[in-house]
């Protein structure tokens, strides 16, 4: 169960992986990738996460606490690109090298604080949103009425994805955004909100959800309205359930971010850091639209 003897015990070096949360399949997959790499490379992996994705303060606390246990490398997916920096300052002061995954640090704030990350591993949420937008434009022939399901209002990840998507929409004059409403990252909210959206805008023919959980909720709402196949659903994250839905034709596409890869590369990079290797500033993990014909 818990690897409680891990920190400091044995002679395997300990790498800490601090995630935003583990209440999301995205991060669960990332952990799997990281764990697999850690087992293969013979290091100790400490995985910790806040209960809620938006809770930067909790994440900072976790970093501070882990630093007490003498970790050798800190791998982190920041819950706040600026906020987390004061915790990273403590890591720097403790001489622990930092690897950033998934969400970039704010470059200026990091420079001001003198925090230097060994590398960034990830794919851009904005870029993913744009990709989804471009896919949508192409798939609909440049003419569609789109409904959007947003994440928790004010949340960085969701905001970037939406900005990317909207920017892509703006370039295609035939695309109209009929409605955009928050469904708080949740599957049942995705269901309810999209059901309501369809009520007000029965002519919506395309829906983009900032995460697959909400997209899958929308799929059920579409089924309940008897419109399966008539509305294109584009999600984000390419969760297993979403891939199955794409195979079954109830979803059109989802942006794959390959969290498993990210986790794997993150641990591999950490090991390289331990070995004193120099890493490139950015290690970009591919983004991909998962659609039926391409898989």
């Amino acid at each position, binding site marked *: 169960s818990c690897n409680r003897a891990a920190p400091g015990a044995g002679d395997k070096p300990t790498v800490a992986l601090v995630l935003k949360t*583990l*209440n*999301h*399949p995205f991060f*669960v997959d990332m952990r799997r990738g990281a764990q697999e790499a850690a087992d293969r490379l013979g290091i100790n992996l400490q995985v910790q996460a806040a209960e809620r994705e938006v809770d930067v303060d909790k994440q900072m606390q976790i970093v501070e606490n882990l630093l007490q246990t003498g970790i050798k490398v800190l791998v982190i997916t920041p819950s706040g690109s600026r906020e987390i920096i004061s915790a990273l300052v403590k890591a720097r002061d403790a001489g622990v090298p930092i690897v950033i995954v998934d969400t970039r640090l704010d470059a200026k704030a990091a420079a001001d604080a003198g925090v230097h990350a060994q590398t960034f591993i990830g794919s851009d949420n904005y870029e993913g949103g744009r990709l989804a937008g471009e896919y949508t434009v192409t798939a609909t022939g440049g003419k569609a009425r789109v409904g959007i399901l*947003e994440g928790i*209002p*004010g949340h960085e990840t969701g905001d970037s994805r939406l900005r990317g998507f909207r920017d892509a929409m703006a370039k295609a004059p035939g695309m109209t955004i009929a*409605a*955009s*409403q*928050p469904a708080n990252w*949740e*599957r*049942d909210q995705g*269901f*309810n*909100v999209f*059901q*309501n*959206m369809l*009520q*007000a805008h029965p002519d919506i023919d395309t829906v983009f959800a900032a995460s697959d959980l909400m997209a*899958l*909720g929308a799929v*059920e709402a579409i*089924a*309940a309205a008897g419109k399966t196949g008539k509305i294109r659903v584009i999600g984000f994250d390419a969760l*297993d*359930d979403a891939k*199955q839905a794409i195979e079954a034709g109830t979803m059109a596409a989802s942006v794959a971010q390959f969290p498993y890869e990210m986790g794997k590369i993150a641990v591999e990079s950490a090991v390289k850091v331990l070995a004193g290797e120099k890493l490139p500033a950015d290690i970009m993990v591919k983004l991909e639209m998962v659609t039926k014909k391409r898989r």
Partner: protein
Amino acid sequence: MLRARQFGTVIGLAVLCAVLWALTPHFLTVSNLLNIAQQTSINAIVAVGMTFVIISGGIDLSVGSIVALAGVALGAMLQTGYPLPVALAAALAAGTACGMLNGALVSVGGLPPFIATLGMMSAARGTALVFTEGRPISGFDDGFRVLATGSIGFVPAPVVVMILVYVVAHIVLTRTTFGRYVYAIGGNEEATRLSGVAVRFHKTLIYGTSGLISAVAAIVLTARLNSAQPIAGMMYELDAIAATVIGGTSLMGGQGTLAGTLVGALIMGVLRNGLNLLGVSSFLQQIVIGVVIVSAVLVDTMLKRHKE
């Protein structure tokens, strides 16, 4: 008094509906009203158990986590291939067991209900997560999904379940000794004990009931989402408490009605639906929700005062 209170909240609901009707043509359509009923059903069901607990002078923060745990139990059983009735029974048993444990901690252990159910909230969620390793369980066959997609006449199955739960619970609460002890314990626990009522036993049952009803909600939710998720049901406790309190049940215990709770749940459901229909921006929504909830109950309070 109770009636006056309910009456006031109904007016709040009516005003809300009237405003929405005036603002959007999409609101007052049969299909939209059925949508609302369906969307409200899960919160409304969970709020039934919450109403029992709150009338008895307690609180149950663990309902959302129990929804997740019971859902996961159901999903796992179905996926392993157990027949539907067995899986349903397992889910109900899991929910009831968690609830009874809450009840035992409160009544035998003497813990404040807030603490006992806060502990369960954390522990049950953790168990669901550990059990599934954080991943949803999905893909069930249609026999099960009828619980979400089916309907009797034009009434969708979740709404049918909700109505059944309300009718049964209402009869239990108003017609049986158990129901009356719920009020008595909440109104004056010591007096109830001195009257020879087995207070501990009944308190355990009350929390058990809440767990059982949460499991019913879990079944409907799992069918509706076609997926059992360990992170389902987050914040359900807040919604359920809100529906109960908006419906006129006092957090001090001893008074309240299920009819009020249903109206409370509907107010919240109608409000969310209306905001979606109107396309209110996501940031503004929260302000509007806050203002409307306060206003709805304020109307009610004013009316009550006026009557006195």
